[in-house]
């Protein structure tokens, strides 16, 4: 029991790193995903193909490889670019490049969700907006977007939880700076010290579960606000479509 509480307090600061990675990546990935989804739906051949290719590549390859690849790519560009601009230590810092890769990755998954939702927006709602003389921007802001985000929210919630889970591999691929260690590295170090696999990994799992539940709860609150226009809400389900 002592070991359990000891682990709980040891891992409390570590989970902040996972939360940090997720908290930074989620909003940025969200914005990027909106553009990617619109790009996928764009009639412009070039934009369309670029967005599709991007989404396919990032959903089709493991995040783990993406971390390695982007870190060594950024490293090889260091002397040519980051150094002269004076952002060397910053760009290659796990606290920067970690979220960067997570953003690139989650944006692709989120874009796919948004794109699916975009195509599911009722045609009639958009036609009504057209018929009343709204401009394309007004149509998007007032009708398409509100519909899209409601359709996408349950799947997006799952993606957010998975992004949080994905933060577990950041430090398996990137160097550790000082004592900045996340949950996984902390748990792994502890296991390597005393071989108490069940205890340390269970406590780490507990942290992941707890934060996942908090995410579900918060996003569920938002969802019920979004869906207050429906008397019977479609239930949020823990059913991820895609993961990394």
């Amino acid at each position, binding site marked *: 029991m002592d070991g359990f509480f000891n682990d709980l307090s040891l891992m409390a600061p570590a989970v902040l790193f996972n939360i940090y990675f997720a908290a930074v990546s989620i909003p940025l990935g969200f914005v990027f995903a909106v553009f990617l989804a619109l790009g996928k739906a764009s009639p412009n051949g070039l934009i369309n193909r670029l967005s599709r290719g991007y989404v396919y590549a990032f959903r089709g390859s493991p995040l783990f490889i993406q971390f390695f690849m982007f870190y060594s790519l950024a490293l090889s560009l260091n002397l040519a670019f980051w150094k002269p601009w004076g952002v060397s230590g910053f760009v290659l810092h796990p606290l920067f490049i970690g979220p960067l890769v997570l953003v690139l990755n989650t944006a692709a998954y989120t874009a796919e969700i948004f794109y699916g939702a975009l195509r599911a927006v009722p045609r009639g709602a958009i036609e009504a*907006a057209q*018929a009343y*003389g*709204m401009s394309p921007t007004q149509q998007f802001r007032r009708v398409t977007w*509100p519909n899209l985000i409601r359709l996408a929210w349950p799947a997006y919630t799952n993606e957010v939880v998975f992004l949080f889970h994905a933060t577990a591999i950041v430090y398996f691929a990137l160097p550790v700076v000082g004592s900045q260690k996340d949950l996984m590295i902390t748990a792994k170090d502890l296991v390597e010290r005393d071989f108490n696999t069940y205890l340390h990994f269970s406590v780490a799992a507990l942290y992941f579960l707890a934060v996942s539940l908090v995410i579900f709860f918060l996003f569920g609150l938002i969802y019920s606000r979004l869906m207050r*226009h429906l008397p019977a809400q479609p239930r949020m389900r823990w059913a991820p479509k895609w993961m990394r």
Partner: protein
Amino acid sequence: MVSMTHAEPVPSGPLPVVELRDLHKSFGALEVLKGISFTAREGQVISLIGSSGSGKSTLLRCINMLEVPDRGDVLIDGEAIALTGEGQRRRVGDENQIRRIRSELGMVFQSFNLWAHMTILENVMEAPLIVQKRARAEVEAEARAMLDKVGIGAKADAYPAQLSGGQQQRAAIARALCINPRVMLFDEPTSALDPELEVEVLRVIKLLADEGRTMVLVTHDMEFARSVSDQVIFLHQGLIEEQGTPDEIFGATRSARLKQFLNAANHG
């Protein structure tokens, strides 16, 4: 009021508000409209009838350019809607013009197409606020009045999904009316409703007709078409097969096809 962009002599009587000239429209290989022309004058109620798939909805949607006709012109208040390109690649030419014109045409869709994420009141206020950029206080007063008029004032703060079909239909009518349109376009305003609700909605439309509002409507209800219309147009295979006053159309029927259609309608 009427700009003189077209050379036709202005006929006596009320001014033309909607004028279609030789409209053609194909979907891929399927030619749906094969040259349709008619005029709706101020205060007139025109009903489009015809069998399923005859192109009634398509024709109505061409009036506000939700479908762009391949050939032919649409004039609203005598002003031709600018179009560019040829055939199936034809597009609206002037975005600002079409938005201005659309906000003069109140369309009521067959499936209502209310915006599900807004309350009824917000639905009704949306276009006046966003498109016409009128003051909120004024719009809200008008919107509430309009909802009262169609009999669902009490439902202003409900969401569309909380309303029955007939209430939704009336909300859609209120939404269309609130932009104070020159013309109301109705696509089968009652086909999705049960008989009871049908009566409710028809009552509202008759009210509008009595107020002298210009209307073009697609309907399957011959009784209703007869009682409310000034002109009835029978579409068949992409062409106007018959056109006339209700008495002419429903009285001594002239064409065999119309006869057949009306017989079937009596049984359906």
